[in-house]
Structure formats: structure tokens, C-alpha cells
């Protein structure tokens, strides 16, 4: 199988990740629950992972790095910390349901700062217009459907100027497009561990500006146990219950692998694959590519439409030829609405550091086959 669905989950991981997960299951218990060796080994692993993530995302204090079960989990914490019913919240036109649904569930007054695909200057203008009066803003760093890299630095600067706290959804960016949390000055940044960070499923990270956050879950933390309230300090305030130690151990191995390779090198490789794949598809009739004219606006995700072919049927036909891709709305109907693809959806090809040019060539050939 040729796996081109890394925007959902990276399937090929560094071998060190599998080993770390396995070793953690064999040797580690639960941090914060005892002073014996297996508990302390788990605690050291959790701390090491926090340190590696703080280093990767330029976070000042380790306590600002929170482990979650997914980006969705982190986004729910961030949104529920900042947004109350009726609050006006500005979001980009490319947000995932992990943003849209929690806001809708709270009863927020959602304002979409819609702007055309691959037009960063228009995205900035849309936020500038919509921000006055907002209580919060949310923007993805990279669209999970189109790979569009949104201008979060400029949007963050606008938010700072307006005094509007910003939540960055870094789900599709973490591990390839860099994020400097301190410099960005956003309130929160959420990301999964199982995509570009190369960790196992069930891991996620939330970066917090300060401790003024609302817990989503309440429970034991191994600290200040005699008080009913959740601890006021991070990370304990947001990390009740037993940590996913094998997952965090795997995530640590993934982040270390990434630090050795560098995010910039990963992004460069994925862009080269995307360019090669695009050129091959451009030679085919009946293919519509959603590709940025300026390569700097796009990460390693490419959506396509095949004329006269349902996107789900196309993905199924490709699966039959050993090509794994995702089709449909990708849990981001808002992005499709903004880009004008809501009716048909798209077939999404997404690349990882482990994909090769040979795989890309085979995938392009398969697309040609199903169109023939």
C-alpha cells in the first residue's frame, strides 16, 4: 500500500517510536502516583517530552505544555476557557469541525472571516475587518483540506493589537511548518501527537499562555489532594487522571526524531513530493488541482477533483489500486464552503517524510488509470 493520508494520521513512524511505546508499556507505571522506580521512570519520560515540546515550539515554561488526548481535546479546553454563550468569536474560513462544533455547542456568535484560497493578504484583511468587538479568535495554521498555510503571524499581530486572545489550531502544521509560541503571542496552540509529530494516536498537546484556564475534566492529579478544587497551577490543572505514558513515550521519540531531521527539512521534502505529483497530474485531462501559485502558501497536502467522478468513488478506486487517500469533506465543511467545493468535496493526497518519489509516481499513474 502507498499511504498518502498523513494529514489524517501518519502511518509510517520512526522505528524509535514503536520501541519507546513498547518499552514504556513494559517498564513504566504512572507519574505522580508514587516514588518507586517505574513511577519515577514514567515521570521522567513525561518531563522529557514536555521539555522536547517546549524546545520545539519555543515555549518559555515547561508548565505551559499540556498533554491532551488529541488536538480536539486541546481545542475544547482552549475554547471553553475563553468563550461564553453569546460571545462573538472570529474564525478563519478554513476551520475544522474541532473548532466549529465546540463554538456552536457553547452558543457563540460565530463570525467567519472568509477569504479566498491561497490569498494570505485577503485572510489578514478579513480578520482585520471582523475582529473589533470579538471575545476570541481561532485560526488554523494550515488547512487540513487544502494545505493552505494561513498567515497566523499577521493574524496574531492583529489580535494582539485588538486585545483579542487567539487560539491557533496547529494540527496540520506541527512537525513541518514551524511555530514559535512565544513570538506568536497567542493564548493557546493545540495540536495532535499522531500526525507530523510522529507520536501514536491518542496523544495531543496544548500550549497555554498562562494558568487562567478552565479544566475540561476534573479528578486526581497527585498534588494538593486534600482540596476539592482542581489545582490552580499548570500542568496539573489540566491533566487529571492517569497520563497516557506509552503514548507520551512514543511522542517523545517522534519529537526527538523530528528535531534531528528538522521541521524545515520535512516541509521541504513534502513540498517536493507535492510539486512532483502535481506536475504528473497536470498532464491528465479532467483533473482539477487546488495548488497554490506561490509554493510558500502550501504545505504537503493537495486536494483534487476528478471531473465526472464522485470523490468517494475515486478514493475507493484508488484504494483498490493500493493507494490510501481521504475523500469527502475531511471534517471541515467550512473550508469547502469557503473554497466552493462543498457540493463535490475533494480527494486529498497528503505526504509525509516517509513517502518517496516512486510512490508519488505510482499514485499519479493510478489516478490516470481510474480516469481512463
Amino acid at each position, binding site marked *: 500500500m502507498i499511504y498518502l493520508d498523513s494529514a489524517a494520521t501518519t502511518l509510517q513512524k520512526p522505528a524509535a517510536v514503536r520501541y519507546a511505546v513498547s518499552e514504556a508499556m513494559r517498564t513504566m507505571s504512572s507519574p505522580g502516583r508514587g*516514588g518507586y522506580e517505574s513511577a519515577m521512570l514514567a515521570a521522567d519520560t513525561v518531563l522529557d517530552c514536555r521539555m522536547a515540546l517546549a524546545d520545539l515550539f519555543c515555549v518559555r515554561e515547561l508548565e505551559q505544555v499540556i498533554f491532551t488526548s488529541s488536538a480536539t481535546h486541546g481545542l475544547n479546553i482552549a475554547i471553553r476557557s475563553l468563550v461564553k454563550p453569546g460571545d462573538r468569536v472570529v474564525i478563519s474560513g478554513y476551520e475544522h469541525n474541532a473548532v466549529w462544533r465546540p463554538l456552536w455547542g457553547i452558543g457563540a456568535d460565530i463570525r467567519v472571516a472568509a477569504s479566498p484560497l491561497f490569498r494570505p493578504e485577503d485572510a489578514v484583511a478579513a480578520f482585520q475587518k471582523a475582529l473589533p468587538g470579538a471575545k476570541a479568535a481561532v485560526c488554523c495554521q494550515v488547512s487540513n483540506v487544502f494545505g493552505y498555510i494561513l498567515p497566523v503571524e499577521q493574524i496574531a499581530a492583529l489580535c494582539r493589537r485588538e486585545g483579542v486572545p487567539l487560539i491557533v489550531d496547529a494540527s496540520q502544521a506541527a512537525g513541518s511548518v514551524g511555530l514559535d509560541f512565544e513570538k506568536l503571542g497567542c493564548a493557546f496552540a493545540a495540536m495532535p501527537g499522531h500526525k507530523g509529530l510522529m507520536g501514536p494516536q491518542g496523544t495531543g498537546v496544548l500550549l497555554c499562555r498562562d494558568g487562567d484556564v478552565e479544566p475540561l475534566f476534573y479528578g486526581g492529579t497527585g498534588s494538593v489532594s486534600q482540596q476539592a478544587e482542581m489545582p490552580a497551577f499548570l500542568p496539573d490543572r489540566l491533566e487529571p487522571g492517569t497520563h497516557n505514558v506509552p503514548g507520551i513515550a512514543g511522542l517523545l521519540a517522534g519529537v526527538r526524531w523530528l528535531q534531528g531531521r528538522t521541521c524545515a527539512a520535512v516541509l521541504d521534502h513534502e513540498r517536493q513530493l507535492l510539486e512532483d505529483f502535481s506536475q504528473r497530474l497536470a498532464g491528465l485531462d479532467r483533473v482539477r488541482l487546488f495548488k497554490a501559485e506561490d509554493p510558500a502558501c502550501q504545505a504537503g497536502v493537495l486536494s483534487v477533483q476528478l471531473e465526472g467522478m464522485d470523490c468517494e468513488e475515486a478514493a475507493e478506486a484508488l484504494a483498490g489500486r493500493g493507494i490510501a487517500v481521504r475523500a469527502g469533506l475531511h471534517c471541515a465543511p467550512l473550508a469547502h464552503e469557503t473554497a466552493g467545493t462543498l457540493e463535490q468535496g475533494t480527494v486529498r493526497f497528503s505526504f509525509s517524510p516517509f513517502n518517496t518519489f516512486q510512490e508519488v509516481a505510482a499514485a499519479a499513474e493510478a489516478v490516470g488509470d481510474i480516469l481512463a
Partner: protein
Amino acid sequence: MQFLLTFRSLTYAQRAARVLERAGITGTVSRVPKAAATKGCAYCVIVAARHRDMAVGILTSAGLSPERTILRNPDGTLEVER
């Protein structure tokens, strides 16, 4: 004799131990004895008594002041300093 330097969370205690390690002082992360844990579960870093002043100074400079320092006598009795 040893000193127990207590912290509000495991993460802080771990950070403190690593700061001390870099300064050449051995500190072991441990649970605070129940008798000395005023708010329930807590963690501490145990250092040799002779390192107490230097350890507290280093940690304070690093922004990791211990919540309390507790002397553990050879017979196991505890004396809370602050």
C-alpha cells in the same frame, strides 16, 4: 541528615532536581511524607543537609523556590523549617 525541599507539583520537583543536577548537587525526587504534607499529596527533592543552603540559593535564582524546607533527622523525625 537530609533536607526535603517541597514543591507544589511533581513537574516543579523534577525541574528542581534537574537544575540541581546541572549544578553538581544530587537531588532525589520523592513523595513528601504524609506527616509533612499539609495539603495532601506533594513531591519534594531530597538533598544532603550540607547542600541545603546552596541548593535553595540555586533554585531561588532559577525561579523554583521550594515551598518549604524540612529537615529529616537520622532517626527519621521531621522538622519543618518554613
